[in-house]
């Protein structure tokens, strides 16, 4: 397996060769930030294009196909338009909060984005409490949404934001519990170690068998709800609240919400693939050495991104099939079904691990 740390170490050494330590760190930080922002934008564009195409295919139509080959640069056009669109200044809004809200959302989304381990040695934010940090950073987003709803001075936005608050906070319980279940299995909270472990011992979803598979499903449901995506898109529920919390946002401010929605989807899928599907760890079948060897040739980043897009596809499939829930049903689903189940899973997993029943 190629270790990306070699590249980073080489850059580090190169910079240190002509810069003082603090300056080298500064330059590295800037470089990493740039890389992350670029990646963020690129993935957003890919995801939006992917969603529009996949949704079209589910709906027996073609989707964008006139801008560029197969409509491939459609989203670029959208971005260009959005960048040059007017941002409306409104009279009766809470100016500061109104302008701050989209940035909060995008910052939260970027922070969590930085948690993803891309390859062996290519983690941006990697602590021993990585999962904890991820959960904490992820919940900043809900503040942005609440602020957006509150500051817009619009009844629809307010209802949307309140729904969103209730929804995200509830579903974070399940997400936390499910992650805890997996921490019981892995014994670590650091993303890099989780991945390394899976590269050595096999993917968690296989190692943890029944409880892990169930946990994976619960995570997908709860994660989907965290991203406010259908069938849990209550906060923006088009047919009820027109556009929900971002109803008053225009131009690039709206663009931030739009981007964040897709990136949150990607992050949710990315974490799912890190924790359950091995992250950058290639697919190995014990006993088939030739096959495993071939698999090792595929770079870790490809594995990571491939798995993530697979999960994204699953989530899109769900989104474009189901009708939307109602807010009370959504909360009932969490508190009556998902939360008890994840508690049971946690116990089950603990039993499995302590009895050595994992694979």
């Amino acid at each position, binding site marked *: 397996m190629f270790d990306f740390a070699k590249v980073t170490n080489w850059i580090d050494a190169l910079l240190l060769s002509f810069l003082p330590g603090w300056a080298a760190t500064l330059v590295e930080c800037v470089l990493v930030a740039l890389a992350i922002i670029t990646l963020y934008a690129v993935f957003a564009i890919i995801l939006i294009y992917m969603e529009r195409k996949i949704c079209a295919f*589910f709906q027996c*139509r073609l989707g964008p196909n006139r801008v560029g080959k197969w409509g491939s640069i459609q989203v670029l056009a959208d971005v260009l338009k959005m960048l040059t669109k007017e941002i409306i200044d409104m009279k009766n809004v809470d100016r500061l909060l109104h302008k701050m809200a989209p940035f909060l959302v995008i910052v939260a989304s970027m922070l969590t984005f930085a948690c993803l381990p891309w390859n062996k040695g290519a983690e941006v934010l990697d602590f021993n409490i990585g999962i904890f940090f991820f959960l904490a950073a992820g919940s900043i987003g809900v503040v942005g949404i609440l602020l957006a709803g509150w500051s817009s001075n619009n009844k629809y936005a307010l209802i949307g934001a309140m729904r969103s608050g209730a929804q995200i906070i509830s579903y974070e319980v399940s997400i936390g519990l499910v992650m805890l279940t997996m921490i019981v299995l892995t014994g670590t909270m650091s993303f890099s170690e989780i991945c390394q472990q899976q590269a050595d011992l096999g993917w968690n979803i296989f190692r943890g068998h029944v409880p892990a598979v169930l946990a994976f499903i619960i995570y997908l449901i709860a994660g989907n709800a965290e991203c406010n995506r259908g069938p849990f898109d209550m906060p923006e529920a088009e047919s009820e609240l027109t556009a929900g919390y971002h109803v008053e946002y225009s131009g690039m401010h709206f663009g931030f919400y739009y981007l964040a929605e897709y990136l949150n989807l990607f992050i949710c899928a990315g974490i799912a693939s890190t924790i359950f599907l091995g992250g950058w760890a290639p697919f190995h079948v014990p006993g088939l050495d030739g096959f495993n060897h071939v698999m090792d040739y595929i770079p870790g980043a490809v594995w990571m991104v491939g798995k993530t897009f697979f999960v994204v596809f699953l989530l899109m499939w769900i989104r474009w*099939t189901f009708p939307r829930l109602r807010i009370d049903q959504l909360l009932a689903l969490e508190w009556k079904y998902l939360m008890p189940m994840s508690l049971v899973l946690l116990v089950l997993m603990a039993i499995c691990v302590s009895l050595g029943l994992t694979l």
Partner: protein
Amino acid sequence: MSNNNYFSGLFSGIKSLLVGLGVTMKEFFTRKITEQYPENRKELKMFDRFRGRLVMPHNENNEHKCIGCGLCQMACPNGSITVTTEMLDTDDGKKKRSLVKYEYDLGCCMFCELCITACPQGAIEFCTDFENAVFDRAKLVQQLNKPGSKVVEKKVAPKPEAPAAKPAPAAKAEAPAAKAAEPVEKKESNPETPTTV
């Protein structure tokens, strides 16, 4: 809610969701039905009876069949048609009505076909052209008779074409009657006859 209900509800619910997912996945791989309009312009054919916009067919001698009776204008519910006529002296000393300008407002038309049914001469019909969007409202008011065109001489003209229908259409029988019944009202519908050019 009993425990039994809780779990059976859960499982039947999950099953229904999976059935739904199956349906969409099947559609994902079926052929798409989209017709790609600007790309398929050449093959695209409208149904014959589709009403795109009103036209007045002219023959190769730049002649149309409109005698300017104004029945269509009267039949039109919302004034999309304005017929301007003038009185000309014919060779045998009679006065004869002749069409000057046949104006049709496409932006107002509601495609009810009353004008066509009313026309005793079969001079107007709907064509299947649908590409009509413009930038300027004034462009939607069209003059249907081509410049310099004149009415087909009666003797040469074939019978007005009846719409393709098998039983003797009522429209045809109705036409002469309508012509006879109308002359008084015809005048008040277009009182101002322009001066002869």
